C-alpha cells in the first residue's frame, strides 16, 4: 500500500474548522469530507481526529450535540462557534502567509 502523505503539522485543527463552516457534521462525516474534498489525498486518522475534536471542544471553538442522522442513527454533531470562526480566520491568515513564504523560496530556488 502506497504511503499517503502526512498532513502538515498543525493543519488538522484548521481543516476541521473549515469543514464545519458549511454545516454541522459528525466525526465520521468530518473525516469523509476532508478525504473527498482533497480527492483522497488527505486521510485523517481516527487516532488523531477524536483527540483533535476534544481539544477544539476544550478551547470552545466547536460545540457538540447528539442528533439523529438521515438514517435515524444517533450521532454526535460538531458545530462551529463564533470563537471557532474567528480562530479559523487567524489560522488561515497564518497558513497563507506561510504558503506564500514557502513558494517565494521555492521560486527563487528555481530561478537561480
Amino acid at each position: 500500500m502506497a504511503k499517503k502523505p502526512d498532513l502538515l503539522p498543525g493543519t488538522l485543527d484548521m481543516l476541521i474548522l473549515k469543514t464545519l463552516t458549511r454545516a454541522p457534521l459528525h466525526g465520521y462525516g468530518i473525516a469523509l469530507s476532508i478525504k473527498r474534498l482533497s480527492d483522497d489525498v488527505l486521510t485523517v486518522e481516527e487516532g488523531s481526529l477524536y483527540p483533535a475534536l476534544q481539544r477544539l471542544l476544550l478551547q470552545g471553538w466547536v460545540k457538540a450535540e447528539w442528533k439523529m442522522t438521515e438514517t435515524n442513527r444517533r450521532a454526535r454533531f460538531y458545530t462551529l462557534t463564533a470563537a471557532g470562526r474567528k480562530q479559523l480566520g487567524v489560522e488561515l491568515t497564518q497558513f497563507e502567509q506561510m504558503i506564500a513564504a514557502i513558494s517565494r523560496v521555492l521560486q527563487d530556488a528555481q530561478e537561480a
Partner: protein
Amino acid sequence: MNPVSRFIRKFSMLLGRKRFSSDLAEEMTFHHEQAEKEFLAAGMSPEAARYAAMRQFGNATRLKEKSHEIVGFSFESLMQDVRYALRQLASNPGFTAVITLTLALSIGANSAIFSVIQGVLLKPLPYPHAEKVVRLFLSSAQFPKFPLNPFDFRDLRARNKSFESMAAFTRHDMQLSGNGQPVELSGFAITSGYFRVLGLTPSLGREFDWNAEIPGNGRQVILSDRLWRTRFNATPDIVGRQISLDMLPYTVIGVMPAGTEHPGNDYHAVPYGESVDVWAPFGFEGNPNQRGSHYMEGIGRLKFGVSAEQANAEMNTLMAQIEREHGGSGWSMLVIPLYREIVGANQRMLLVLLGAVGMVLLIACANAANLLLARAAARQREVAVRLALGAPRRRIIRQMLTESLLIALLGGGLGAALAEGGVKALVALLPPGFPRAHDIHVDALVFAFTLLVSILTGVVFGLAPALQASRMDPKRGLYEGSRGSTGSARQQRLRSALVISEVSLACVLLIGAGLMLRSFLNQLNLDPGFRHDHVLTASISLPNANYKSDVDIARFYTRLMDGLRSVPGVESAGAGSDLPWTGYDENAGGFHFEGKTPPRPNEEAHARYHMATPDYFRALGTPLLHGRFLSDADGKDAPAAVVINQAMANRYLPGDDAVGKRFTFEDKPAEKDWIRIVGVVGDVKDKPNSPGAEPAFWFSLPQAANPDMLVVLRTSADPRQLADSLRDQVRRLDPSLAVADVRLMDQVASESVATPRLAFTLVGLFAGLAIVLAAIGTYGVISYSVSQRIPEFGLRLALGAQPATVLRMVLVQAMRLAFCGAAIGLAIALLLARVMRSMVYGVSPTDPATFVSVLAMVIVIALVACYLPARRAAKANPMDALRAD
C-alpha cells in the same frame, strides 16, 4: 483563550467523566459502523469489511487514552497510578514491609539527627542580631581562653571604638530565703549594659545602670520570669520590693521575660538556656592597680560594619597598652562570635553524626533499589504487556516512580513517628549542659526535611528500576518472562554495584563505630585517680552575711564533718573546693621553691589551687603516694601546709622527695610565708579526656577559708540513703542553708563520658542498621542470581559436579562482592581519618585492629547472608531444573 473558562470547561468534563467516556465510546462505535458500511458498499465481504474498519481505526485503547489525556487533569492519571501502585504494594505485603521498615528506620534516624542539628546549629540564637554578639577572653599559649580581670575590662570598655556596648559577668549564686524552703539560685553578677549587649529588655522594671557598679550600691537584683512566677506568684508590684538573698535585703529592680537565655560561660559554667534565675550588679571593689585575678567573662555587641577580627585587633592593641600601664604577663585578647563559641565544640560531632546517618540513608536507598530491581525482573511480563498494548514509556516510568515514591512516603511517615521518639531518646543521651539542648524539637522544619528526604529517597531508589523497566523491548520481555527470565547481564551488574556500595558504606560506619567504641572504652577504663562508687556529693554555700570570718567558715565545716562522721554508714566525710572531672580551673601563679632560683617573669610557675578538709581525699579514694594527708592539726595558726599532686611534684621538683619542701608566693618571704608540702597524692585529670593532669595543690581549709564547698561522703551502703542525713546535719547547724546539687559521684563520672558515649551509641546504632541492610542486599542479590542459575547448577550436579563445588561457586560470588565493598569502604575510612581524629581518644583513626576486625566482620556477615542461597544451589535437583525450563 481564557485559562479560567478553559479550566471550568475541563472541570465540568471531569465531573461528567462517565458521560465523556460513554460519549466517546458511542461516537467511535458509530464511526466504526459507518466505515464498515462503506467497505461493504465497496464490495468487501462482511468479515473483511469489519477487519478493515478495525485496522483503519487503529489502537482504540490508545485513542481513548489520548482523548482522556487532552481533557483530563494530569492528577487524574496520577490518581490512577497511585491506585495501581497501592494495589501492587498490597499484593506483596512482605516486600512492602521490608522496604518500608528499612526506609522508615533510616529516614527516622535522619530526621532525629536533623532535629538536633536544626535546634543546635541552624536555629538562630535567641538574641536580636545575634551575629553582632561576641565573647571576649584573654588568651595565651597555655590558657587559650582565660577570664578577664574586672579593671582590665573596665579600661577596655572605656577605650574601645569597636563595640556598641560591652559587658562582663561572673557566676554569683545566691541563696533565697524567707519565702518557703531556702533555695540556692543560679545567679550572675553583671555589669551595666549586660542585657543591652544581648539585645534583651526587662519585661518589668529596668536594667542596672552605671550607678549600680559603684561598690555599696549593689543591693539590687533582677529576677528571671521563672523565679518571679514560682516564688512570687507573678505579682506585678514586685519591682521595688525587697527580698532576702544570702541573708541580706536586695531590692528587685526588674524581671526578665520568659525566653531570656544565658549565653553560656566558661568559668564556673552554667549551661546555655534559661538556666539563670537572678542577676545582681557587679561592683568594682578593691584596688584597681592590682590586676592579678581573673574571673570575669566578657561579652560585646559589635558596631555596625565592624568585624570580629577588627575588634580583636583593637582589643589586642588596648590590652598591650593596659599591660604597659599596669604590668602583665603578655596576654593577648580573643574575640569569638557568640554562635561559634556556643556550637563550636559540637559542630563537628553533629556533622559527623549527620554524615553517618546520611550514609545509612544511602544504604537504605541502595537496598530499596535492589529490591525493586528484583521485583522489576519478576514484573517484566506485566510491563511488556503494557508496552505492547501501547502504553507510552513515559507512563511506565511514571507508574514505577509513583510506586517508589509511595513506598518512600510511607517510610517517611513511619520515620517521622520514629523520629519523634528518637529525638526524646537522643536528648536524654546528650551530655549535661549540651548547648541549646532545650531547643531540640521535631518541628515543622524537621517535618519538611523528612518529607523532602522521603521524596528524594523515592526518586533516587526508584529511578534505576523505572528506567530499566521502560527500556525493555516488549517482544523480548514477553518471551523472557515466559521462560523465567535469566535477567540481563546489565541488570545483574547494576545490582552487584549497588550491593558493593552498600557494603562499603556499612564498612565505613562500622569502622567509625569501632573507633568510637575504643575511645569510649579508653576513657571509661582509664584509671580515674579516684573511686567514684559509693560516694554522695552536694554543694553548700555559706552566705557572707552570717559567715564573715575565715574562722566562722572553718568552724562550720569542721562541725559539719564531725556530725557527718557520726552518721551510721558513713566511712569518711570530707569537703573540697571542687570535685574531680568537673572542669575546675582556679590557678595560682608566681610561686617559687625554697633553695631554687626564682623563675624569670615569663616562666612563672602555675598550679591549680584547691581547698580541702582532712578527709577529702579519703572520701574520694584518691591515693596518698608520699607523706601524709592534711589533718586537723593544720589549723589556722599552724604553719601553712599543702598536699600536692604527682604532676606538681614531677613538674617542679623532679627527682626530689617533695615531702618537706617549701614554696612561697612572696618575693621576700618571712618565715610565716613559707608553705610546706606535707604529702603527695595521685593525679586526677580535669576531664577524663584531658591529655594529662595539671599540677595542683590543696590548702587546709582553715588556712584558706572558702565559703562554697562540695561535700563528699563515702559509705559502705547505698550513698543515696545518706542524702537525708546530710540535710539533717546541715539544718542542725544552720536551718537557713540550702543543700544543692545532691548527686552521686557515679553520676558526675558518667556525665563526664557522656559525649563519647553518645557518639559511640549513635554511630554504633547506625553501623548496626547499615550492616543489616547490607546483609539483606547481599542476600537478595546472591539469592536472585542462584534462583536464575538453578538449571545450570542442576545440570552441573547431574553431570557429576560435587555439591561442594557448587557451594564454592556461590560463596566465591558473595566473597567477591564483600571484598570489593570492604576494600572501597576501608579506603574511604582512611580518607576520613582526618575528620575522625578529633573525635577519638587514645586510638589512631587508622587503627589496624579496628580495620582488620571490620574486614573480618563483613566477610562473616557476607558468608551468613549467602549461606541459604548457597545451600539451595548445592541441592539443586537437575530434574526440577529441566522441567522448569
